[in-house]
């Protein structure tokens, strides 16, 4: 043990460089994990947070709010499905808005629900639920209670859109990485008509459903999908996971994590293999004067744990301040579970990678100390 530590103290640059490499890799892995989680949450947080347990898109909408339009005959069919306990229209559009106290205009996604229990948000971190048209719940990353948000009709001269007051805030409630407001159907309808006076009618994008007593969400999904090929019903969780782009984001990051995850043990394994090779004369001598193979391997493994552990601590320390920041409009978050999982995985892989070096240590023949063979 003391031998391992003494060697590390004497070769600070060598071990320091390795710890730096591991730390950088850990930092990159954790940062990308945070970006992946933040990206997915910013994409579909609003779908996860909204209150309707079942969402029905039009098949043509391909599981996006904005792409889906429910024509009246289809709406009637959906509402009439056996097992529906409650149903409500949900509309969604992205608008240009001006927010009180801020310069210029910005984007905002507006989600209007006919029934607040089917398409609004009930898990508020601040403020209260809307009680009247013109009131809204905002995504906390983008709005504050009391903000007044004016819809700006783009390309419509002299038109003025409705004004919304933010009365409540919800966490992780963005849609498509855009500041998001949850409001009533009537307010949404007014916003949509102000942005496009040519619109003949404002149709719902999605129908929110709650199952009747004794009917499960999955059974209701099945019943709706059986009624029409034009209806695409999904449970809340499935609607979030199957939003186009979410699976691609996850797959892309998995490949990246796999590659980084391979680099860490390889770098560690290579380093200790070379170090053992360089020290073979000294290790042979130690064996000749009575040090057991197990003692030397233990010393090696202590160094592996210290190097990988040091890299993990340093990498996590670098990640900590970054995880409090925002990348564009994606809010990052410190994920203790990710730190724990990656720490265990990388430490395990690091120890595994040192097995080749350990085998070399165990193969040392003490007799070679008398022939000089250990130095080869």
């Amino acid at each position: 043990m003391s031998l391992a530590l003494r060697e590390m103290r004497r070769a600070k640059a060598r071990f320091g460089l390795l710890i730096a490499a591991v730390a950088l890799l850990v930092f990159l892995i954790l940062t990308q994990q945070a970006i992946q989680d933040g990206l997915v949450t910013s994409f579909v947080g609003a779908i996860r947070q909204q209150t309707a347990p079942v969402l029905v898109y039009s098949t043509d909408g391909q599981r996006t709010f904005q792409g889906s339009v429910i024509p009246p005959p289809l709406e009637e069919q959906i509402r009439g499905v056996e097992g529906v306990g409650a149903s409500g229209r949900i509309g969604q559009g992205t608008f240009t808005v001006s927010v009180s106290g801020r310069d210029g205009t910005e984007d905002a996604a507006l989600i209007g629900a006919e029934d607040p229990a089917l398409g609004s948000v009930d898990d508020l971190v601040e403020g209260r639920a809307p009680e009247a048209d013109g009131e809204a719940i905002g995504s906390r990353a983008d709005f504050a209670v009391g903000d007044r948000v004016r819809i700006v009709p783009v390309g419509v001269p002299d038109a003025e859109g409705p004004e919304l007051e933010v009365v409540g805030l919800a966490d992780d409630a963005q849609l498509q990485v855009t500041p998001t407001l949850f409001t009533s159907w009537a307010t949404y309808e007014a916003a949509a008509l102000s942005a496009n006076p040519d619109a003949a009618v404002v149709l719902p994008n999605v129908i929110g459903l709650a199952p009747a007593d004794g009917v499960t969400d999955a059974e209701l999904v099945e019943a709706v999908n059986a009624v029409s090929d034009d209806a695409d019903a999904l449970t809340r969780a499935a609607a979030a996971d199957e939003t186009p782009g979410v699976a691609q984001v996850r797959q892309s990051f998995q490949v990246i994590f796999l590659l980084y995850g391979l680099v860490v043990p390889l770098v560690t394994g290579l380093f200790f293999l070379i170090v053992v090779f360089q020290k073979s004369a000294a290790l042979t001598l130690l064996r000749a004067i009575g040090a057991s193979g197990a003692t030397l391997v233990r010393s090696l493994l202590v160094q592996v744990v210290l190097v990988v552990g040091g890299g993990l601590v340093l990498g996590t320390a670098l990640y900590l301040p970054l995880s409090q920041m925002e990348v564009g409009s994606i809010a990052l978050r410190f994920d203790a579970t990710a730190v724990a999982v990656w720490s265990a995985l990388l430490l395990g892989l690091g120890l595994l990678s040192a097995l080749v070096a350990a085998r070399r240590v165990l193969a040392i023949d003490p007799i070679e100390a008398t022939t000089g063979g250990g130095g080869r």
Partner: protein
Amino acid sequence: MRLALRELRRRPNRFAVATVILTLIALLLMFLGGLLDGLEAGSTGALRQQPADAVVYAEGAEASLVRSRLGPDVRDAVAEVVGDDRVGGLGSVQLGGRLDGRGPRDLVPIVLFGYELAPDALPEEPPGPGEVFADEALRQEGIDEGTVIRLGPARSEVRVIGFLDDAQYSGQSSLWGSLETWREVLAANRPGARVGEGTVQALVVQDAPDRQGGDLVEVLDEATGGATDSYTVEGAIDALPGLSQQRTTFNQIIGVTVVIAIVVVALFFALLTVERTGLYGVLKALGASSGTLFAGVVLQAVVVTAVASAVGIAASLALDAAIPAGSLPFTVTPGRLVGSAAALLVAALAGVAFSLRRVLRVDPASAIGGAQ
């Protein structure tokens, strides 16, 4: 130098693990770069196809086609600057496309564009009503010339009469028809988004050769009295929501990965140099200069990096071939592969430079039993 190459040939195992690590880093660089290129190509192809010096959106539309609306009066103001035949309307709508022989829920995600000024690869005149040119990527869906696609819930029929390459938008493949076709399909399928006669989402503008008066995009916004936000094509691409953040994030990750490559190469060759201190002492005693010895180390780093890059390139090409169309937005381009290999080479040279001091410090006296 010959000694360095001979060592590589005779003891390849010594360099194998470093080569594997650098190969993984090369693959990471190429994969990250390929993802970035794929995401950008999938979002910007339709804009890159525009034969334009400026793209004009409504003021406040944040360069979003869906939110922009320009009426005939704005068009007239723009036409006064460059001439009527140099201005073309552009409109888009994202819909699902139904094809014969496929299931009722098996739709192709499509963006239908209506245009007046033809994209670079298309004939000057827009096609007739109900006719469209299709993005080459749609061939993977079994779409060919003559294929009829039924768009949206209204099943608006359009017939494919030809193809153009690299014209994706918002991650989806595109169809290109006349403004009339676009208006009809939009009104039938998106009644809430329908536009009046003469209204478009954006204007594509070609500059007049003899025009005077300064920067085109500024002149256009001035001519419309601030009712528009005009961009160059590159500016319109950069202004696409999220694109610049996406590019910055990926480039930062790529940058840190290059730093890791520097550290890995530095570590590996520092250890090798320490191991060879005695040998270098002998070689110096025999007259080899520090420069010659270091050149050998550099050569080994270059060879290891070249092998890693070559394997990385081959793996990237294999990955590109293996990834099913429409799954990951991964695009392999020669520029990206060569750029990644070059970045890795620079990282290797920077990393190996850390060994220079050790080579310089080797004392020839160590060859005759002095301190190593």
